[in-house]
């Protein structure tokens, strides 16, 4: 599809001429999200300010028979907002209002374009926060989090996005506005809010979200376990989880990542360590020391080299900065990198990490690891030079082999990034034909014409427009 003057005029009438883009150079910014392997420019990008404008945009797209796709900050990592087949991209970044904060009843109603961390900042003075905290929380939007059911380091204890969204307003692909769920108890009917979260924009466009606000813990203890090798570190993680301890966060960084973040942030990580594990417990002041002591004991039992504890809030925040901005530091290791997002049962972590090491050797591709160890959610990062076509091919094959191993170990190919366009080919490996047919049928309930976020998640969605995607090659990706 190429943009037509009547379509542009119609969209301009809705959002105003200052709030749409159709110039080829300006559209380049929107050709991909954090997954840059596949690219396609939309024909038009519109920036609505209200639900009413989105309704009109959707109806206009339907009238002109062009596909449309919502986009938040574009930090997603699986091509979820790639405009397959071109069409209209509905960028939600102007809709960033906090409509209501109700601390008494423990919720907030927010726009989809609100940056995740801005909500926490709004309520932190009152001792509350919004619990899902993806590492990209300084940029990603709540609407994007709803679409991908985002996780983050602290979701180990507090749950992912769906556990904190109690209601949504959505514009369905036919332009209908639906309100499901809300702040009050448990309204009658199916849990369409829960179904919608994680549907990657294929059921419609989230235009408001009612989210839970969580009290800040009274106390934290943030520790750093320093291990000689990654196998010992993963054994420690298995011991902690196996002992029934659920810390607030349990994050592993291997030697490659340690070197990169140390160069970037000068925290004082030992550069010769095989791995470090960032462990945070939170809760009552009366209990965090006991829990921290149990964790330290388990780490010592498996042979931790050293356990450190953050002695101040500043030190704790610096540790978290190192973790959350680890991806930003990877540029020090390699000109390009490709991040994977697999999940294995937590006790299989040592196995998958050994496999990743062997895969690294087999394909002669350096792989570093920083991940949510407590959830078994791995993020092997494959380092390469995108100017070398041979390396690119090896990166693709190595990544596929790792994800296939995750499936073999009883896991999944995505814990938080989503399927998008990147992992469509893995869906038949995870799901049977019946499973995929049922999912396709549920999509048809909301999106019968398939014009909203086409060609995402399900291979049964067809290959409409896929031939128009520019297959580039793995390159630098945004932080997860």
């Amino acid at each position, binding site marked *: 599809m190429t943009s037509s003057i009547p379509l542009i005029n119609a969209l301009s009438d809705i959002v105003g001429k200052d709030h749409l883009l159709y110039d080829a150079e300006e559209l380049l910014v929107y050709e991909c999200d954090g997954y840059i392997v596949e690219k396609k420019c939309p024909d038009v990008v519109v920036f609505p300010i209200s639900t009413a404008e989105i309704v009109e945009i959707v109806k206009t797209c339907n009238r002109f028979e062009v596909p449309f796709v919502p986009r938040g900050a574009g930090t997603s990592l699986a091509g979820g907002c790639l405009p397959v087949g071109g069409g209209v991209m509905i960028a939600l970044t102007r809709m960033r209002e906090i409509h209501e904060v109700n*601390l*008494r*009843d*423990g919720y907030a109603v927010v726009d989809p374009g609100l940056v995740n961390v801005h909500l926490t900042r709004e309520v932190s003075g009152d*001792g509350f926060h919004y619990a899902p905290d993806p590492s990209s929380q300084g940029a990603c939007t709540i609407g994007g989090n709803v679409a991908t059911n985002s996780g983050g380091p602290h*979701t180990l204890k507090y*749950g*992912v996005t*769906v*556990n904190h969204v109690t209601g949504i307003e959505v514009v369905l692909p036919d332009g*209908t506005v*639906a*309100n499901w769920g*809300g*702040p*009050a*108890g*448990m*309204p*009658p*009917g*199916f*849990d369409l809010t*829960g*179904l919608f979260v*994680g*549907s990657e924009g294929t059921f419609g466009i989230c235009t408001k979200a009612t989210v839970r606000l969580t*009290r800040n813990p009274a106390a934290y203890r943030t520790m750093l376990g320093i291990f000689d090798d990654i196998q010992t570190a993963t054994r420690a993680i298995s011991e902690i*989880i*196996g002992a*029934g301890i659920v810390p607030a966060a349990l994050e592993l960084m291997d030697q490659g990542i340690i070197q990169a973040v140390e160069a970037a942030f000068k925290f004082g990580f030992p550069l010769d360590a095989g791995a470090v594990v960032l462990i945070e417990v939170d809760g*009552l002041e*009366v209990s965090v020391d*006991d829990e921290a002591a149990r964790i330290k004991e388990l780490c010592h039992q498996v042979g931790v080299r050293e356990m450190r504890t953050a002695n101040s809030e500043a030190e704790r925040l610096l540790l978290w900065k190192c973790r959350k901005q680890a991806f930003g530091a990877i540029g020090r290791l390699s000109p390009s990198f490709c991040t994977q997002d697999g*999940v294995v*049962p*937590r*006790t299989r972590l040592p196995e998958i990490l050994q496999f990743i090491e062997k895969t690294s050797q087999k394909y002669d591709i350096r792989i570093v690891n920083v991940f949510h160890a407590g*959830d*078994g959610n791995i993020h092997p990062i494959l380092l390469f030079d995108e100017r070398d076509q041979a390396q690119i091919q090896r990166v693709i094959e190595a990544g596929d082999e790792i994800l296939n191993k995750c499936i073999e170990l*009883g*896991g*999944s*190919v*995505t*814990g*938080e990034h989503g399927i998008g366009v990147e*992992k469509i080919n893995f*869906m038949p490996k*995870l*799901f*049977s034909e*019946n499973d995929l*047919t*049922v*999912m396709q*049928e*549920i999509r*048809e*309930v909301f999106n019968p014409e398939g014009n909203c976020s086409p060609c995402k998640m399900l291979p049964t969605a067809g290959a409409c427009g896929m031939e128009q995607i520019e297959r580039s090659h793995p390159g630098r990706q945004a932080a997860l």
Partner: protein
Amino acid sequence: MSDVTSDPPQLTPTCETEVIALIKESYEQSRAIVVTGGGHFETYGYPLDSNLAKLSTVNLNQVIDYPSRDMTITVEAGMSIAALQHELAKEGQRLPIDVPCAETATVGGAIAANVFGSRGYQLGTWRDYLLGFSAVDGQGRLFKAGGRVVKNVAGYDLGKLMIGSHGTLAALTQMTLKVKPIPETGQFLYVGLKESEIETYLSSLVRTETIPVSVDLITPEMANLLSIDQSLELPIEFGLLIGFEGTPREVAWQLEKIQTEINTVGKPGVMFAIEEQFTDAVCKGLSETLSSWKSLSNEDQVKKLEKGHSDFRSSTYGNITFQASLKPSAIEKFVKTARTQGCVMQSLVQFGIVRGLLPDMNTAAQVIGSLREELKKFNGSLVVIQSGPQWDSTIDPFDYDSLMLTYMRKIKEKLDPRNILAPGKLFK
């Protein structure tokens, strides 16, 4: 597989393959069936044709996989909640969802009915614990969604559709659940209060330094029922039951702390920590009293009530229970109104849920209408969760939003196109 040739027929498959065959046969013959577990929610929703064949999952009751160190378990749908908890307890783990009548309630049934209790807000409900499932839809298609790992966003989260769909979309056959360690101890604090003080105390709890796993408000009439059913001897007044779990040190610290906090808010009535040995009775009572009451005959109810508080209406108790949803801050006003209409109530206050028993079958339609009017003021809603044999067909068990109803119908048409799974149970 065995067919019991009584009326209505009872189908009791022993494996997934038999479930598929039975539903496929029903589909081909366009013959309606009802999927049942423990049978505790048979009177939920609109009344069904009493001659419908029942497909019971109770013989699908095996543990499929229990990697306890991963803190997940995969079981068949017909396993009882008690059997599940027994299995988990061997490894020091549990599923922290309060399901009444755990000996007979099944895992699949509890998911299908979305049963949960007081600890749900802090510890989660089925939507927080169901990681993956297999089910057979109304065409006899076996399908699954989710997986067996604790974090997974591959594919649509169809588990959310199964929860609370009461077997109208598919028959659950297997599920993988996240589990948690059993806490070392648990204890309740009882706080007596006046009706006019409810919101003062509830709002103060929002900022407590403690972390209660449950906060229940009980009306004096409910305190009476709870006392009778569980021999707890609670004061017959408005009461807050605040639950804590953890190590003995954590629980002791929190019990002390919250009493201090409550004393700074106002002058509560009697306040005491319920002795540890009664913790199970309180949990059981809070989850079961309203539902077990339903199973008593009127004569039994009257006898029990006569032993209770003199103010309690003991004439013609019906057996309709309801669940109202509203913002927690509106609970005081709603409870006050509902009590004047003779309702016996318990509130899961953190959720904004009030569950109650209606006073009289004869006035049920009028009272429900009146409660729904009251709830409109708070953007709330009301569902009838148990109805009686003398069902008044003028009472609508649900007050769906019209668009919700439209999409519920569309979803059912996809999974159950011949409308054979509990037809008419959730909508006509």
